[in-house]
């Protein structure tokens, strides 16, 4: 499918040079390579600069509240399992405001994809620390630097038996496209954490900072080994691994509910149903 099928006339409200532009291009590329027509794709997003991304390409879209996109995505997928449902937002939205939904939907394992633009800072509210900001980062609010250690999405996800955990970097489009495709092709809840510089507010984790540190996991790495996966998820600092960190094939939510095994829920007729059995219960 040609990438141009995803083009629309919306103008991004992002800063020039933002990593979001690269992620947007990669998104269209991955979808085109997988031949996913825009009308069969439902993007769900929350609030933040990252969460605006789905406005900038052709797709069905529910752009909801801050932090609640995963819940909306799960509800939509339960209603219509034929849709490809991707929740796309930032680190503050997904790991901060939406933390409880992040945790419990990893357990639920509905077949949705969660793409997180992780720039380790709040952009739209102008530069406060995010749950993934490094210790010591000074901001207008954290005036003496961040004192709470960062949230580690990969390690949390692996601890919760996530079915798919991957990390990529907006500065490596080829890798990012391949990670997006792997996440989409995975049957189950798939987390893709995308490292991304914020050119306006994050002066520490810059493009160069990431570029010098990220390295790709190679073929010798076994993503089904949970202990190794923990090790890779915890690796941060001088070297930061990117790639598929953990795969744990387990039954999805949909596969476990008989109600969801046949026709998509929204297509099952709700008229002409015989309820006389229920009436008998009231006698």
């Amino acid at each position, binding site marked *: 499918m040609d990438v141009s099928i995803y083009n629309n006339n*919306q103008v991004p*409200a992002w800063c020039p040079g933002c990593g979001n532009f690269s992620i947007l291009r990669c998104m269209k590329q991955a979808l085109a390579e997988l031949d996913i027509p*825009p*009308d*069969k794709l*439902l993007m*769900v997003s929350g*609030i933040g600069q990252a969460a*605006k991304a789905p*406005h900038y390409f*052709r*797709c*069905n*879209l*529910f*752009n*909801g*509240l801050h932090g*609640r996109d995963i*819940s*909306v*995505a*799960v*509800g*939509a*997928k*339960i*209603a*219509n399992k*034929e*849709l490809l449902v991707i929740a796309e937002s930032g680190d503050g939205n997904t790991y901060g405001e939406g933390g*409880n*939904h992040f*945790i*419990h939907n990893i357990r639920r394992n509905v077949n949705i994809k969660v793409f997180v633009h992780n720039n380790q800072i709040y952009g739209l509210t102008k530069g406060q620390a995010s749950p993934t900001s490094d210790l010591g980062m000074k901001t207008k609010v954290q005036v003496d630097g961040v004192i709470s250690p960062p949230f580690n999405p990969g390690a949390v996800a692996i601890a919760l038996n996530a079915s798919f955990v991957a990390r990529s970097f907006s500065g490596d489009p080829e890798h990012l496209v391949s990670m997006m495709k792997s996440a989409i092709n995975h049957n189950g809840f798939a987390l893709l954490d995308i490292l991304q510089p914020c050119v306006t507010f994050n002066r520490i984790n810059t493009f160069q900072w990431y570029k010098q540190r990220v390295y790709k996991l190679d073929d010798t790495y076994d993503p089904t080994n949970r202990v190794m996966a923990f090790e890779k998820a915890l690796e941060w600092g001088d070297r930061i691994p990117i790639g598929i960190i953990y795969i744990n094939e387990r039954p999805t939510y949909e596969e476990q*509910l*008989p*109600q*969801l095994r046949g026709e998509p*829920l*929204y297509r*099952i007729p*709700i*008229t002409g*149903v015989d*309820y006389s*059995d*229920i*009436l008998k219960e*009231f*006698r």
Partner: protein
Amino acid sequence: MEVRIIIGGEAGQGIQTIANIMSKFFLRLGYYVFTEQSYQSRIRGGHNFTQIRVSSKPVYSIDDGVDILIALNEETINLHSNELSERGVIIYDNELIKSIEVTDRFLGVPLQKTAVEKTQSKVAINSVACGVLVGLLDSDLALLESLIREQFKDPEVGEKNIQAVKAGYEFGKTRNDFPFKVPFLENNTRLLIDGGSAVGFGAIVAGCRFLSAYPMTPGTAVMNYLAGHSKKYNIVVEQAEDEISAINMVLGASFAGVRSMVTTSGGGFALMVEGLSLAGMTETPCVIHIGQRPGPATGLPTRTEQGELLFVINAGHGEFPRYVTAPRDPRDAFYKTVKAFNLADKYQIPSIILTDQFLIDSMVTIEGLNLNEVKIERYIEVNPDKNYKRHLITESGISPRALPGTDGILVITDSDEHDEEGHITEDLEIRKKMVEKRLRKGTLLREEVEEPLYSGVQDPDIILVGWGSTYGPIKESVDRLMEEGFEIGFLHFSDVYPLPCRQLEMYRDKRFVAVEGNATGQLAQLIRRETGIDISDKILKYNGRPFTPSEIVREVKRIWM
């Protein structure tokens, strides 16, 4: 003929089982039944009781007084013996309760000992007690036996319990001078239904196929009900990690085309309020059931109150239309739940069903539900125009609704202010048009609400005004006052928002008395806001217990003087 029974004891002693079996027993004999539960927020122990009112005429409520008190513990005797009617009797376990002063009003039965003898289990106290009741009332033992058989899936356990029933029956028969007899009355097709099941059944019949909720008393009843029927009727019931997730899941499912609902209580709804506003902005239909209980905060978790009316109609930041209905009884709850789903779809708005613990947990006999009366209309565009715009500005304010996944179109919506397509906009002209479009739906909605139900004399001196579950006790009090010659009327609001005002305007020069289960007269405040009518006389109850007709009669007479 009317007999009032109270069964009291600790949580876990099986009070509810006795009440369920006996309520069905009286239903099948042809009587009208009203059964109400009072319980504490605990799993074992404490003091719980259930009241069953049985009558040959329709009953809408519990009332003061008791003719048969079944005391499974001593506390029940201490708390309720002063309510005993002139010819009433107290049934108690004379092997376990020894310290009380026994008079000829007492019927001692070794309930527990008999249960253990017949079934080797204390649990069968319920069955013995049912037997005693049926013996005492000189009623149909064979019917009770068949109900016991229905109750127990394991025939062996069932047979043992029938032995327990028979033993209890013989104890009951020893009081053959007991003045209350409950013989077979008439064949009937009435149903025995509680409010929680009525909302749940209404939701299923309306086509609700997704419910997400976080457990919270008393709203949980509806989640339990749908879960119990989920496999047979293809309903997905998902217990959410919190109420915020519950409402957002429901909005996702509804956006993708499935009729969906949440169920909760005031505190849980407080957490959903941002999601309510999201439903308003994205014009996503959803149904919210709120079982009220006393607040603020955790309040009295297992008691009843009508404290959330003003909260619910004002909840949510920003301005958007909503439909709020407060059913008067389980029958009304069934039909109003269907209406809530239909209006949510028609106007693409949140619909709120406002019940309370009293309505949810009380069982009442109703005339059969007519499922043919139920009409389901989805208002979904199956073949939308190629230039489809989710938030198209129309004269009615209602934009055509299509589902994501429809061939050749995109369905886009946003919690930000958006243009007709659904994309974020900061064009302030569009903003103004979108606000007006959303509010136009509210104007049309005014034509959909049901006027309050009036009962009473043609030209009343005083009109009682109530809403929601207090219908039963107020109706009975008005009937009694009319019999005593009072020129009284009663306006009962089931649909509460938008507030239907025609009847209020018609009676606006009358003296109104607000009867509400809260401390500030919230409906009276709403009526003043909408019509300018100032209701200064109020009968308010906020101790966590429902009104009884007798107390309303007393209060009305006090105001009348």
